[in-house]
């Protein structure tokens, strides 16, 4: 995105596409927003009803997926269309290790993150090695996720299409990552994950490696020419991205206690990760969280509105599918009206 705008206004476009450029001011903002997220995350369970809290939980899962996607595609410049693969690997590894080996989901999560990272680095290495780029790269990630879904659906050890159900334990059990249904612990843990993911992103983007990564995204030729090890930085950012997404998978599993191939590797998962990040702002640290706050509750809001419709909407009540139609219309409208995403637009405006 830098190339097309750079011709007209180099200085502006550099700044908007690399949020770390205006460093000290934005760093202070980042720490402030981080603290705000922590406070809000800590207090929300006292304010919301259990039903609302489960929507908030979905916001966190979406945000984590979006942050993962944004790392690789927003900052790394490699458009992934198959982040369901890493989400699914996280969820399935944890579920498999929990049910067949009896391993605690905490450990399972670490293993899942490691497996997802290995898979992501492997596939990205192949793609970069063989110079699969642009739309072809996007389709190769898509195919990878689909392959995993089909593999799981045909594998007896992974219960084919039935998926895994996490056995219910009595009471709260920190060791097994399981709490009673309306316990706020899930949300607090999720907030913790979110904070860790955000801090990891911030630290990485501020580091030498992160700056090199963004330089590589903006101009790979130039970056390689001044001696930046392009491949290594691309693989690093891919690894971080996959690990965050896999953690989201484990969080999903432990919260909903169930996972099947469609939930884990389905195409909707990749879509959600992309939509969340794009709506908030691609290549923006806070984009995915803002996007998730809008995307995750959308279908619930529409569904709730249609259950008790106001007078003029009465003829639409009880129509299945309408919530998704509205979701789709909002999605298209947002993309057309706010091409830089919400955070991207705000940042651009405030710098003018």
């Amino acid at each position, binding site marked *: 995105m830098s190339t097309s705008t750079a011709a007209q206004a180099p200085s502006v476009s550099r700044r908007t596409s690399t949020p770390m450029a205006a460093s000290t001011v934005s760093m202070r903002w980042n720490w402030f927003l981080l603290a705000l997220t922590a406070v809000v995350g800590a207090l929300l369970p006292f304010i919301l009803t259990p039903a609302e809290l489960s929507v908030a939980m979905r916001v966190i899962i979406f945000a984590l997926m979006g942050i993962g996607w944004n790392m690789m595609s927003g900052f790394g*410049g490699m458009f992934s269309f198959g982040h369901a693969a890493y989400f699914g690997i996280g969820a399935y590894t944890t579920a498999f290790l929990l049910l067949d080996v009896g391993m605690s989901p905490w450990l399972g999560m670490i293993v899942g993150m490691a497996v997802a990272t290995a898979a992501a680095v492997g596939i990205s290495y192949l793609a970069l090695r063989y110079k699969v780029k642009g739309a072809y790269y996007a*389709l190769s990630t898509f195919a990878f996720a689909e392959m995993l879904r089909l593999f799981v659906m*045909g594998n007896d050890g992974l219960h084919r299409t039935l998926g895994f159900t996490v056995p219910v334990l009595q009471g709260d059990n920190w060791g097994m990552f399981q709490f009673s249904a309306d316990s706020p612990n899930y949300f607090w843990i999720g907030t913790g994950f979110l904070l860790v993911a955000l801090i990891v992103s911030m630290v990485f983007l501020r580091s030498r490696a992160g700056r090199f990564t963004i330089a590589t995204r903006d*101009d790979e*030729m130039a970056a390689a020419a001044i001696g930046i090890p392009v491949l290594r930085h691309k693989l690093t950012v891919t690894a971080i991205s996959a690990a965050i997404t896999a953690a989201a998978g484990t969080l999903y599993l432990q919260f909903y206690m169930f996972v099947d191939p469609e939930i884990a590797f389905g195409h909707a998962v990749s879509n959600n990760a992309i939509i969340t990040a794009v709506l908030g702002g691609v290549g923006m640290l806070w984009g995915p969280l803002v996007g998730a706050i809008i995307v995750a509750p959308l279908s619930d809001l529409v569904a709730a509105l249609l259950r008790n419709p106001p007078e003029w909407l009465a003829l639409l009540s009880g129509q299945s599918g309408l919530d998704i139609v509205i979701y*789709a219309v909002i999605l298209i409208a947002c993309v057309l009206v706010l*091409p830089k995403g919400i955070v991207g637009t705000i940042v651009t405006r405030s710098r003018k």
Partner: protein
Amino acid sequence: MAQSPAASLTPSAPAPNAEAPARPKRTYNGPSPRTLLVTLAMVVTASVLAGVVSGSVTVLFQALITGLLTGGIYSLIAMGLTLVYGVLHIINFANGAMVALSMFLTYAAVSGLGLHPYMALLITVPAMFVLGAAVQGTLLNPIMKAPIHTQLLVTIGLALAIENLLLMIFGPTPLSVELPGDHGVSFLGASVDLSRIYAFIGALVLVALLWLVLHKTRIGTAIRSVAASPEGSRLVGIDVKLIYVLTFGLGAAATAAAGTFVSTFTTIEPTAGSVFNLTAFVVVVLGGMGNVPGALVGGLVVGLTEQLGGLIFPGQSPLLTVFVVFLIVLFAKPQGIFGRAS
């Protein structure tokens, strides 16, 4: 850099480097004889392997026939997709939903107006052409220079909207369209439905028609010119935005024809098209993105791979083999089996 989405879509961007993605410069770059031979040899090897594993000639023969016929359907569905990608460089994710929409239009024409299913083509093709042109004109033309994910999200939104509108209007009950006089015919021990044979012929006719439109008409020449260089086309006075609109309309019309043919032998439901979505992408990449005749061959290869893979690896989803082949081809020959390196 090359995959920074905007760069690969902005025509004015300087060619980044020598190994830039092999973006097809022409809508036609036909399969070379050598690659055709190699592909054929691999298909023969796979057939022999499948025959040995299954241990029955009849089973193998049935698989080959089914594979070819299914492959024809895949080609049909991928045709519009590859045309749109070749000219507009948009991965049209709504392609599957448009197939479903065309199926429902066929159903409505057959059950409501009492038409013969194939006569419904007279309704679905123009209707979808208008719809496609409208989509391009209103939604996609303003964002032609935006990053790849912007266009992708619009087509995803479109797919969701179409599928769920169909769900709202027609309900979740699966429907079907009966082709008068359709029955299974036996061919050297393999049984085949007539409707599938017609669909296969339909695929061949459609390729021929598209080829004629692209190569023998002024509009087609303009479309190919825009695919090769939008800037250059603008300089010689071609209305590039109009060509985009016409191309998307043409792609949608091809998809409409596919939907009508397919509706005679599949259950019609809102998600019936997106089942083909995945396969259609594979076909498009195998054939070389933007390569219309390539899509025909790619479809046949995918159809055969699916059937033979099902025989060689029983118990696994046949599509799995397709995706493995897809990834291998993507890495080994990213411009598609039948694409040529630029």
